[in-house]
């Protein structure tokens, strides 16, 4: 089969395809599965709802980026106390197109916990290591160089070192074309960030995969308890409205639409839910942006936004990572209204910002909402609230140690703090969920894997317990929060599932 990438505008009339494997979603999970299976010599069709973007055709206006490269204009939000904004990418490359590109292996203690508590076989750190290494090589993972780190990250690291905290530069999927433009979350203008549309997908096409952009999967076809294909709509790239239909017949269907939309698609099709766990156990790895004001200029918008980490508190489930955003997003996150807010933004060059993420134990639920949209309920637990207040306090302490004049912790009754004494007040007082402003970028766990069909949606290799040959290879299979950015973990587990599919489902003589 000759590989090709089709964009929505090229497709007129109905499309009917047939392949050994059909993959839904081109993000970290789907692209890896597609490429690995194509490399084994299987025919692959990859479907992506979003459009293809690269350095030559990025929308110039940030507002347009949100409209065109994010789901729901970037306004996906969880309901609960507090509401949490959860932006998700929708483009060729999925969320890898609009994330910060941070690469972390799944922490060993998390893998061991999965083995111990969930009896998941084959996930011991030494068994997973080859997958992580393979993925890191493919995405050009390397620590951020000082050359593009930016002052925002440097200053925070200086503060952390003063306090003796464990910290360092993050590893990212970027090559020498990354110039530290600071707009990773708006799509990389130099293609320096190696999202899956720049490595896995072109390789899959070279190997014969057929990739369809603007193709929205709607109906999963099942016969005799076995996945046999998928049907859906080809969308108009500009309006997002359906313009024709497609269908793909396949032996194996790989679902990798992300931890929100994979369970949603299963729910819409009333499939794979004998355990009742589809859409449940959602973790989102929530975080708080802690901003600081300095006397000197930081120019945080220059340099890689997420270039450094502090993992001193990883055992408490807290990870601090760089984050600095464009003015339109910074302003909304700062306290105050009117002149005070304006004055603060006038000092945009003196602002610095870091994110404090917590490894959540809260379990959210995804429901099918009106107009096919996901309705996400996520009420932050008391334990996670305590973790969040500690996370804010640690980040604030580091900013103050780095010489910040003021810190803005995103807590309603404490819009700003200026001393360690106030940090202690924050630690001592019990925060209520409604008093926090949180964001999240890493949904996971909503179709969790396990060793018992009664309590999980898929088996330890991602195959549905209920529907044979239906695999899930995105973050929804993770049984707990990882505590770190999930991209590399999703890729490694997708690679592992692809190996399993090849050996157990598609090789001559397999069942």
């Amino acid at each position: 089969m000759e590989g090709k990438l089709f964009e929505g505008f090229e497709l007129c009339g109905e499309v009917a395809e047939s392949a050994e494997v059909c993959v839904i979603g081109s993000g970290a999970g789907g692209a890896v599965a597609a490429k690995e299976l194509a490399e084994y010599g299987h025919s692959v069709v990859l479907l992506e709802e979003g459009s293809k973007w690269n350095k030559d055709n990025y929308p110039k206006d940030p507002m347009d980026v949100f409209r065109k490269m994010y789901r729901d204009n970037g306004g996906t939000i969880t309901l609960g106390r507090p509401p949490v904004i959860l932006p998700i990418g929708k483009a060729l490359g999925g969320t890898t197109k609009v994330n910060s590109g941070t690469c972390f292996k799944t922490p060993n203690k998390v893998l061991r916990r999965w083995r111990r508590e969930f009896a998941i076989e084959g996930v011991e750190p030494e068994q997973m290591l080859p997958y992580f290494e393979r993925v890191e090589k493919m995405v050009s993972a390397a620590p951020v160089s000082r050359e593009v780190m930016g002052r925002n990250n440097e200053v925070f690291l200086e503060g952390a070192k003063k306090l003796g905290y464990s910290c360092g530069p993050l590893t990212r999927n970027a090559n020498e074309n990354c110039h530290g433009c600071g707009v990773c979350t708006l799509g990389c203008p130099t293609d320096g960030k190696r999202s899956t549309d720049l490595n896995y997908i072109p390789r899959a096409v070279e190997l014969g995969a057929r990739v369809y952009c603007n193709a929205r999967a709607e109906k999963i076809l099942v016969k005799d308890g076995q996945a046999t294909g998928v049907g859906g709509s080809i969308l108009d790239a500009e309006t997002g409205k359906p313009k024709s239909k497609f269908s793909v017949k396949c032996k194996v269907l790989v679902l990798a639409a992300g931890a929100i939309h994979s369970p949603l698609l299963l729910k819409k099709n009333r499939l794979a839910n004998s355990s009742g766990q589809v859409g449940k156990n959602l973790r989102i790895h929530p975080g708080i942006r802690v901003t600081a004001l300095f006397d000197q200029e930081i120019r945080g918008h220059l340099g890689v936004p997420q270039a450094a980490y502090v993992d001193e508190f990883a055992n408490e489930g807290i990870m601090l990572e760089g984050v600095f955003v464009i003015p339109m997003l910074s302003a909304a996150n700062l306290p105050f209204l009117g002149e005070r807010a304006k004055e603060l933004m006038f000092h945009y060059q003196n602002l610095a910002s870091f994110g404090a993420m917590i490894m959540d134990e809260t379990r959210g639920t995804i429901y099918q909402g009106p107009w096919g949209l996901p309705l996400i309920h996520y009420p932050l637990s008391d334990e996670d609230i305590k973790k969040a207040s500690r996370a804010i306090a640690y980040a604030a302490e580091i900013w103050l140690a780095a010489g910040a004049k003021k810190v803005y912790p995103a807590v309603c009754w404490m819009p700003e703090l200026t001393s360690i004494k106030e940090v202690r007040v924050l630690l001592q007082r019990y925060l209520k969920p409604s008093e926090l402003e949180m964001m999240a970028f890493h949904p996971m766990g909503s179709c969790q894997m396990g060793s018992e069909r009664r309590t999980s949606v898929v088996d330890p290799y991602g195959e549905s317990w209920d529907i044979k040959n239906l695999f899930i290879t995105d973050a929804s299979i993770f049984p707990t929060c990882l505590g770190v950015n999930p991209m590399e973990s999703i890729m490694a587990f997708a690679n592992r599932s692809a190996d399993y599919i090849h050996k157990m489902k598609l090789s001559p003589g397999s069942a």
Partner: protein
Amino acid sequence: MASEKKLGNRTLKILEDLAERIIPSGGPDYPGARDTALVERMLERFGEFPIAVTGLKLFAWSWELAPLWFFKFRLFTWMSPEQQTAFLESWEQSRLMLRRWTVLLTKGVFMAAFYNQPLVWEKIRYQTGKCYRVVKGGEGK
């Protein structure tokens, strides 16, 4: 403009008052909502989506009527600018999640539109997509 007509003068006034309280005009630093015709610019963008114009109308009128729910016995646009600011600030600092998030979302919409203008970027010296390598190299020279 079509969307302005659809909204009507009264709704426009509510939106302009809200925008002006969140990003006031005048002052030595840089322009505010009125100076940059923020509401008109927002309507231009919202005009592409008819459902969004209806949503904006509902949103504006919810604010107009909001003081009544808190026994202020007046509409939002009847208040003086100082009273409007105080009213919005009381919501922003409220521990009631609904009040707080309503004002946060309102602020978010106006701020996002305001700080997405090249004129404002110039004032705060934001350089979009500037290569850090180049800037850092320039500093050393």
